[in-house]
């Protein structure tokens, strides 16, 4: 049986070889190169030739400054509290999670608050729940006066708290904080939306674990 299997395999190989010879003989050099390239890519498919290139995020460390879009940004700390300033959970039993950052706009034009919000998505492992909309948008307040800063003018250091509502059952010591890449859109030919703005396509530039402090009104 062993010899019979080898004989069958030889016959198949000889047939394939004959077919390949017949096809390749009729091709020009350019056609051979193109077909060879395509065949090579298909041959690599099992090894991930079609997989998207995954770029691992760089480590995010509390207290270390990074560059994101127009900002120099430092993630300072994370705090969980029952209330923060005038912000309270909408659902009884829930709590508030605040990620405190220092941000400075290094550009020549003001940056909107939304640009900062785009850069720091809600921590996926922190039990964040929607507040007044289905989107997990944070309330963004200045730490110095608990007012909402709409724009970040160039050259100023702002200490901001991004505040999300958190499921009351969540009880962990750390959260994972991501910082997303911001890309400058000079002219929006894709969505025909506003030109000259920062946009987050969702790629994570930095990722780090942040210890969560517990407190009130910090």
């Amino acid at each position, binding site marked *: 049986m062993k010899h019979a299997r080898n004989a069958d395999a030889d016959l198949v190989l000889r047939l394939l070889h004959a077919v390949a010879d017949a096809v390749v003989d009729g091709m020009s050099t350019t056609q051979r190169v193109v077909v060879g390239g395509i065949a090579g890519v298909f041959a690599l498919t099992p090894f991930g030739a079609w997989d998207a290139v995954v770029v691992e995020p760089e480590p995010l460390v509390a207290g270390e400054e990074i560059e994101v879009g127009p900002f120099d940004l430092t993630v300072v700390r994370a705090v969980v509290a029952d209330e923060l300033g005038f912000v309270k959970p909408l659902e009884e039993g829930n709590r508030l999670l605040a990620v405190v950052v220092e941000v400075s706009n290094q550009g020549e*034009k003001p940056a909107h608050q939304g640009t900062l919000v785009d850069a720091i998505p809600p921590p996926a492992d922190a039990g964040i729940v929607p507040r007044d909309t289905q989107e997990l948008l944070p309330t963004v307040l200045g730490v*110095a*006066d608990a*007012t909402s*800063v*709409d724009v970040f*003018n160039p*050259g100023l250091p702002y200490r901001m708290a991004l505040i999300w509502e958190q499921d009351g059952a969540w009880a962990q010591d750390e959260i994972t904080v991501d910082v997303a890449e911001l890309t400058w859109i000079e002219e929006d030919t894709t969505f025909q939306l506003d*030109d000259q703005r920062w946009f987050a396509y969702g790629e994570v530039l930095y990722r780090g674990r942040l210890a969560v402090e517990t407190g009130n009104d910090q």
Partner: protein
Amino acid sequence: MSHSGRRVTWRSTTLLVVAFGAACALVNVMPQGTILEQPFLVDGHVGETLDLDYAELTVTEVRTADTLASSQPAVAAGTFLVIDATWEATEGETYFAGAEVVDSQGRTHWPTSRGGCTEGTGSQPGYAWRTTYCFDVPRDALAGATVRLARGTHVHDDQAGQRRDAVAVVDLGITRQEADELWEATDEIDVDAPGFASATTNADEEGEG
């Protein structure tokens, strides 16, 4: 069979091509982005009334404050450049949306609505409307700063909101020495709510009398 129309000659074809080329060249060479679409800048200084065609504008006072007192006080990340102005519309009800400070480095700074300040205001012909803009700016933005006020906004480089429209550019008159003094001051300002400029003036005069 004969053609009754005019014959297309090489000469007319050449003229047509040349005319078409000249028109294309004219469109490309004309500086539409830098001149034809630019707003009409009306320069002035603090205390001067500027005629913008659609309104008269006076920047009346420039101050700085670290804190804006209100029901919810606002603390500056730098210092608040507080600019009082009066608008009087001359053509019809108008909203004045454009407000930004441009510093000597070419950076722009937008106003805040915190502390009772205004980001934009409106008025009608027949009265002057007083309002206060507050810009949170860094120390190096004070000296040589100008405020740019208009009915159109200036968010993008293409001038879309202010294209071929009058824009006031008011020199705030802050010297380098004055900038240092303004920065060191730790004043708190209670911003007046927007209102009729003449009514406020009369009330002030009566109060003083």
